[in-house]
């Protein structure tokens, strides 16, 4: 399954948007998350996680420093819980103001298999952009995403400017992408979603070790992550799979008797969290499942 290779598509995300400002905002947020943002630079975007005391992921965040404020994008379904954690843990003597940006700011992803098409749709040269840093263009912020196969940028824009922005990119050849095509794009490019983040996995099980910093000091879940790291006892990992028959999202038992959790599926390919003891080929209900790649 593939979306039309000649096209450039855009997808409007439903993220939770939180803005934190004040001189102690970085210190405050850094105490909660798994990565270390104490050295975050202006316009830099950092990926991070919030975990519970058992080390399991409760939210996945993109944190950006923009003009002295922190912009925090999270999984929409987790917005209330994450904001509650941020607000209730504010120290009385720290300068931190937390704002709800839901509905006021929007994130749009524009992607294509061809970099020139993407540049044309946006009217800017993508190849010269740095990864992980926003650039400011007209009244929007643009961030280049590093993907496995395709090219993508994410746009941060005021919600009331979105119509004119869409008119421009559509005029330059981009087409609106629905949920189905976005899922094809994200599975092909190894982009995780709330289908993975909201199922109680540990960061290592989703291949997210690199956004866990065990040297930064305590954060919720750190004790568990440190123990797993030192003992090397992760029992599951996320893999891309393919199969000849249709496989829906759900939990299955393999021919080896172990659990296979299919978290995202396009039918005959997707992501599954499986035991590290499984071989690269296994059977589910007599159908062959081939594990092609670790994410």
């Amino acid at each position: 399954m593939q979306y039309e290779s000649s096209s450039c598509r855009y997808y409007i995300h439903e993220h939770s948007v939180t803005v934190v400002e004040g001189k102690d905002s970085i210190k405050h947020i850094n105490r909660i998350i798994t990565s270390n943002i104490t050295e975050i630079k202006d316009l830099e975007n950092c990926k991070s996680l919030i975990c519970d005391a058992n080390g399991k992921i409760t939210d996945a965040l993109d944190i950006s420093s923009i003009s002295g404020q922190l912009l925090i994008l999270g999984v929409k379904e987790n917005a209330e819980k994450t904001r509650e954690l941020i607000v209730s843990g504010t120290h009385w003597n720290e300068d931190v103001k937390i704002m709800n940006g839901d509905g006021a700011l929007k994130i749009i992803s524009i992607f294509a298999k061809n970099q020139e098409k993407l540049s044309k749709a946006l009217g800017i040269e993508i190849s010269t952009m740095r990864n992980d840093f926003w650039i400011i263009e007209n009244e929007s912020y643009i961030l280049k995403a590093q993907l496995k196969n395709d090219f993508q940028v994410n746009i941060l824009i005021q919600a009331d400017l979105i119509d004119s922005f869409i008119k421009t990119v559509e005029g330059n050849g981009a087409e609106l992408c629905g949920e189905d095509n976005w899922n094809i794009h994200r599975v092909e490019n190894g982009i995780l979603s709330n289908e993975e983040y909201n199922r109680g996995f540990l960061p290592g099980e989703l291949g997210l070790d690199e956004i866990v910093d065990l040297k930064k000091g305590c954060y919720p879940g750190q004790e568990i992550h440190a123990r797993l790291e030192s003992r090397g006892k992760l029992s599951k990992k996320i893999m891309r799979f393919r199969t000849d028959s249709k496989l829906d999202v759900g939990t299955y038992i393999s021919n080896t008797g172990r659990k296979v959790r299919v978290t995202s599926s396009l039918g005959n390919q997707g992501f599954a969290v499986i035991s590290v003891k499984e071989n690269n080929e296994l059977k589910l209900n007599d159908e062959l499942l081939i594990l092609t790649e670790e994410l």
Partner: protein
Amino acid sequence: MHKYTIVHIGLLSQGFMGILGGGGFTLPVITQTEVVDVKITVTDSALKQMKNTIQGEEDSHCLVISAQSGGCSGYLYDMKIMEKPEAGEFQIQEFEGVKVYIHNNDSSLLNGIELDFKDTLMGGGFNITNPNASRACGCGQSFG
């Protein structure tokens, strides 16, 4: 052990002049609104230690106990002997002349705590038992 009370979040719309140049829009500020009447207990050993530490400065200084996000279990205790802050947003309890301040924002997390002091070489110092915590870190500094 009780699970801590869920924080109620209040929204106050305020002018916002930051991301994307601001000017044209406002974002609601989220604040914590749940305040409960705080009652804490202090053991004899903790009181003795508090008096030793604050000795002679009872009129100007106090003990502030607070909670902040972080630690292995979600929240971290913070205790400071400091000059008395403005009383406005604090609840104050007095123990034989030593005043203990708890901020209204921390009231639901810290109501009912018992402050103890252990005079041991290993694992000694002030220790908090919190009925609102469903779990605590081994080091005793974090709870959730």
